[in-house]
């Protein structure tokens, strides 16, 4: 079969692609023209204005439309607590909480998040006023090098909320019963956050303590 270059979508195809694509199409307000066709170092990239609430503060940015939410946080807002481990959705170091759900911020463009509420590690707590999950990580030594840690903590906070919200996981046995906290559930749900230092056993103890305290 000859390779197809046919990328023309019908309107129905676009609708079928679902909410994420719709957001992507709706969000950017393009403000600058430009091209990548070698017009020289002065030409501007395509940028768009995007506004979002990050850790309670309103942010108004004009970004290259290729900028990921991760790079918007790290390079434009200088919120470097969120880490880049792979930039490919393979490690979880970039996990942040967007509108109450955790996502890999490297896998999503910033301009897709117009009006979103974003919580990063900096928004959970600060030295001297730690979030209970941050404090539990310190107490249980749930880290070593610390590079996966912000992602682990954001994930852990969101995981407990997911269980509370009765969202099932791959290992939830009975989908009709209420989701509940268990070792297997937590390990499964946390498995998108790699810790090469291997602090898993301690991370689990930290999460368990916070979950116990919350119950």
């Amino acid at each position, binding site marked *: 079969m000859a390779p197809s270059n046919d990328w023309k979508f019908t309107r129905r195809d676009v609708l079928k692609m679902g909410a994420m694509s719709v957001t992507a199409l709706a969000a950017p307000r393009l403000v600058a023209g430009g091209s990548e066709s070698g017009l020289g170092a002065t030409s501007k990239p395509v940028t768009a204005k995007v506004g979002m609430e990050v850790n309670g503060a309103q942010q108004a940015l004009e970004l290259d439309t290729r900028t990921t939410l991760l790079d918007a946080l790290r390079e434009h807002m200088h919120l470097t607590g969120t880490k880049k481990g792979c930039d490919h959705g393979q490690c979880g170091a970039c996990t942040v909480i967007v509108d109450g759900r955790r996502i890999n911020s490297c896998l999503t463009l910033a301009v897709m998040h117009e009006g979103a509420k974003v919580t990063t590690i900096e928004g959970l*707590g*600060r030295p001297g006023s730690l979030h209970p999950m941050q404090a539990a990580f310190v107490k249980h030594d749930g880290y070593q090098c610390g590079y996966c840690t912000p992602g682990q903590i954001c994930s852990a906070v969101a995981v407990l909320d997911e269980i509370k919200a009765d969202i099932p996981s791959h290992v939830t046995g009975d989908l009709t019963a209420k989701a509940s906290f268990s070792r297997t559930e937590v390990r499964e749900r946390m498995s998108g956050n790699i810790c090469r230092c291997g602090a898993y056993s301690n991370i689990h103890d930290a999460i368990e303590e916070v979950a116990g305290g919350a119950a």
Partner: protein
Amino acid sequence: MKFDTPATTNPIDRLKVVGKPVDRIDGPLKTTGTAPYAYERHDVAPDHAYGYVVGSSIAKGRIVAIDTSKARRAPGVLAVVTAQNAGKLGKGNFNTARLLGGPDIEHYHQAVAVVVAETFEQARSAAQLVHVDYARAKGTFDLASAKGSATKPKDGKPDTAVGDFDKAFAASAVTLDATYTTPDQSHAMMEPHATIAAWEGDRLTLWTANQMVDWSRGDVAKTLGIPKENVRLVSPYIGGGFGGKLFVRADAIMAALGARAAGRPVAVALQRPLMMNNTTHRPATIQRIRIGTSKEGKIDAIAHESWSGDLPGGGPETAVSQTRLLYAGPNRMTAMRLAVLDLPEGNAMRAPGEAPGMMALEIAIDEIAEKVGMDPVEFRVLNDTQVDPENPKRPFSQRRFVECMRTGAKKFGWERRAARPGSVREGRWLKGLGVASAFRNNLVMKSAARVRLERSGRLVVETDMTDIGTGSYTIIGQTAAEMLGLPLDRVDVRLGDSSFPVSAGSGGQWGGNSSTAGVYAACVKLREAIAQKLGVDANTAVFDGGDVVANDRRVPLTKAVAGGDIVAEDGMEYGDLDERYQQSTFGAHFVEVRVDAATGEIRIDRMLAVCAAGRILNPKSARSQVIGAMTMGVGAALMEELVVDKRLGFFVNHDLALYEVPVHADIPHQEVVFLDETDPISSPMKAKGVGELGICGVAAAVANAVYNATGVRVRDYPVTLDKFLDKLPPV
């Protein structure tokens, strides 16, 4: 200060702060995202540009032409640096391959260009426009087929022999002759190699992720051809290294060259998909082990040979080193052979030598014990030695290996292990228990520090030591606090800056003991200066609770600094105690697995490590070192393998999706026991390394547990189900 006689009683023995499982002092920074890693220094390089590295797409050959004109014209591009315009570059003492390739290419993904632009997106986009024409040369990529061409390495001690191995082996009542393989492995630390470089005239500052600040400062200078004094390296937080950040890598050199070309500070992080072929890895090995014993299981003859490969000028993976020391036996030989391979550079990864060596040796011990008909714990106990078996006049400084085995066996419920493999079935699961020894040498390294008692009463410690997750900040703080009789919260620890005194750095599990010994030496000097100021005798004064106690009087330390800060600087050097005594660390790993009788899926249910590693300076962070190493050992046992494309010569699975490492779901609760031990021959801290001990033997304990569960012996790592599924007992 020189350490050349065993330590006697010293202020560390008070153990008011040292030895306590205190929380890490850098914990609040790490858990709030406020610890600054290399790529995150907007504070010091606010207007930096971004570099994106282009890697070679051939493994060996030459660049015929490189066209950067399109990339240069792309939006936002400030500079494109290749070997053509980089100027003359040297090669670091610790590098085997050059960090910027061209025209000759030495390995796949060797850097061939860095594209610098205003933004990351622009640099990434323009990097795709660099066009390189290569002339591919024939390379050698397969260790198994290159094994015959392997030669005796020139450096080090490739071969050892004592007694007459061949004769003794031939005469042994029970023998084993087996070959094992371990694959290439990747450090895969979570923080990519990253650097921000800034020039001020001819002086270069690198904010970088590097385990060995002074080595790397020298190698940056050598590579760029500038004086070492003109280079400053800053590396206060490092997102994991495991040996992968021991040396200068392309990120640092590309950032420096990019910054020089662009006239601006430049940040470069190696892209994740580039890391595994661009940087170093743990080389694959083929290991042949022969063991001959008496009917009762006493080793008469033991031989360990290992083959590995590396680029021209590289070295062998020293997989036989533990076999020279771990078990008794009068007739023994070891040998290492090195083949030339054109794969990326092989180099140190967590416990180089012992980690892959123990993967093989400890399966072999399990096999020979079974042949003898002995429990593998008892077999190891029977073959213990208290002296260097190749040089019996040389004792171990401490060797509580048997106690590790016995303690672990008892705690783990080893007596419940069924000797007959494949015989325990619980529902769909076959269950098994496995054991292996843990062994890793203890190295001591010269290390210095500067300590300053400030008028405020705070104590500041500065050393270029690094914390790669090992807990250096905390144990150095604990050491200084103990020496000056202060609570830990009155100590500030500053690390990882080449403007501080040169330390041991983080490698070979020497960092903890060596760097704290350096701080000890500086603190002894500070105590003398304080005592002199207060007019008391430094040798009899007790530093306690923020006071100096002498002649039945208590004087606050702050009194000594009323007129100004007192600074002291010193380091620890070592005599020949490590030659007179063999210094090693010991342990025992126990693992319980279950294997799905139908699908062969392996799950680990329990893990225990018992360690004898001298004084444990902080049981909390030391335990983390060990569980982290156990986790990496699980990876080595069950999943980690860089798959070689033997045609084109590169590691195929070069990202975190395809190079599998353990995740939460793979790891059970892990237990660690430290034997209460001090080793006064090691240093005044009486401590030894522990971060690498934890990985040595783990993989074999897992493999032995899988064998005990299934009755199928796998000798080629990783132990994946395709290697035993067809041999499982009938369901």
